[in-house]
């Protein structure tokens, strides 16, 4: 028997039913897809992909994009949040996307789908709420619901790297808080350390022919995504404050003054910042 995980504590570091968080995710979803160069890995043969699952779909950006681009494929999005799934459902309905469905479901519990249901299982940026110890069990569940020959793809990020003292300090405190909360893999907690693990998660679950690809989101002042990433940081650094204070890595005063300073430094013409992402995907043996 796998170790019993205490699910009484909600593990996501930002409250999932928050409207500001939803607005942030709507934008961030779209930007991440663009930064990844599209909805699927370019090498993938989509002709045998009919049923698609998006895990922790948030407000449903990726799933509705897929449904719109591929009317012949069925897409299901699951998320723990009521407001996110309702928004996603409304969005799909308003566009007459009958091939997109959204269901409230807790990713940390057994997934409510029969074996061999999906040809493609997608999960992006889930490490924010998946405790370190739960990954193997989640990946086993993914394997179970993947069809033989189907694909699972994981996409995660490390903390961004910048020349701003305050942004760097906030990121360093976030990494430390997540380390203390048992959600990261770096042995010392200086970074998330999640991206080096993705290949291993897939392999240990039983996926094979694993491939990976790196992406970069340039958030520098002069980069295309500067404004969107400024807004993203403005919301996420704000919403993360209670988590940082609760884990004891920073005081209310320090986090507030760092936050103000970070906002200033991010809109300086000398602000340089890059954010690395990794996707790893593998195939379930036939």
């Amino acid at each position, binding site marked *: 028997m796998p170790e019993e995980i205490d699910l009484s504590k909600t593990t996501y570091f930002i409250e999932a039913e928050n409207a500001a968080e939803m607005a942030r995710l709507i934008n961030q979803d779209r930007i991440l897809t663009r930064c990844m160069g599209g909805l699927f890995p370019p090498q993938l043969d989509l002709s045998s992909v009919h049923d698609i699952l998006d895990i922790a779909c948030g407000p449903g950006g990726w799933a509705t994009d897929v449904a719109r681009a591929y009317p012949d494929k069925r897409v299901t999005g699951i998320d723990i949040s009521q407001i996110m799934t309702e928004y996603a459902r409304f969005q799909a309905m308003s566009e007459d996307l009958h091939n997109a469905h959204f269901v409230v479901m807790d990713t940390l519990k057994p997934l409510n789908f029969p074996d061999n249901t999906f040809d493609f299982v997608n999960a992006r940026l889930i490490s924010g709420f998946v405790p370190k110890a739960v990954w193997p069990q989640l990946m086993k569940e993914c394997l179970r619901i993947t069809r033989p020959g189907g694909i699972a793809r994981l996409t995660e990020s490390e903390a961004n790297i910048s020349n701003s003292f305050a942004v760097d300090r906030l990121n360093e405190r976030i990494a430390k808080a997540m380390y203390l909360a048992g959600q990261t893999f*770096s042995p010392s907690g200086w970074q998330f350390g999640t991206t080096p693990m993705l290949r291993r998660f897939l392999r240990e679950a039983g996926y094979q022919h694993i491939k990976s690809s790196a992406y970069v989101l340039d958030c520098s002042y002069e980069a295309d995504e500067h404004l969107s990433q400024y807004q993203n940081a403005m919301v996420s650094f704000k919403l993360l404050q209670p988590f940082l204070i609760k884990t004891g890595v920073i005081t209310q005063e320090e986090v507030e003054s760092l936050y103000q300073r970070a906002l200033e430094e991010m809109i300086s013409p000398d602000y340089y910042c890059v954010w690395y992402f*990794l996707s790893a995907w593998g195939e379930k043996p036939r």
Partner: protein
Amino acid sequence: MAEAYFIDAENAAEMARLVNQDRITTRCMGGLFPPQLALSNVHTILDIACGPGGWVIDVAQAYPDKQVTGIDVSQLMVAYAAELAKIHEARNASFQVANILQPLPFPDHAFDLINARLISSFMPQTMWRQFLQECLRITRPGGIIRLTEPERTISNSPAVEQLNDFLARAMHKAGQSLSPNELQFGVTPHLRRFLRDAGYQNIQVASHVLESSAGSEEHLSQYQNSMVFFKLLQPFFVRTAIATQEEVEVLYQRALEQMMAPDYCALWYLLSAWGEKPR
């Protein structure tokens, strides 16, 4: 100008390491040039800090109609590269010894494409500006420069992480880091700035990843790379008073063991940035 590289450039073990690392870096970058780049107008190419010449010879062989020059501060590396070019009959490849921290020994507008990979390991933070001004001078109008640099390794091995902490700290102390955080290199966010400040335009970036986890394609090659690299780095750590010889040796042995463990996970990210000299 004091020699800033933290490993002795005339070391044969370092050369052997670079011979392999060159090839792996090219593979992880998906090829010799950015796929978006039109090569039809590129006739003369310079590789800066070419080491044992792997990239230069690969380019010379793939494009016999282009002239490729490699420069490096190391006598040993340049001699090796020239010998290798002879063996491969790559007559369009040439090499010369040059210190890139000094004015570059080429006339204005000499090259259509300039390539520089992993030079942050010996580039003092304050020298980037002057170096890129020199690059701009020798680039033809409409020509391209590409910089490629890494961030530090991220792994699940405590010993490998600690050695990389040492490396980041030692680079900070030596004035070669660009991050406010002493555990980061922080060079990759700046590549865009270096190019723009020098006067290049239409700047683009692309990321690459080199995975060295157990079970990955490059596991063994990266194990060997680290084995040499961290051995050669020991004097640098001791000299910068980051650690004692004893501490470094214990960690080194532990790191070698942890890198061979079946659950070892590690990778490093690289960023390429390239831009065009205004016509």
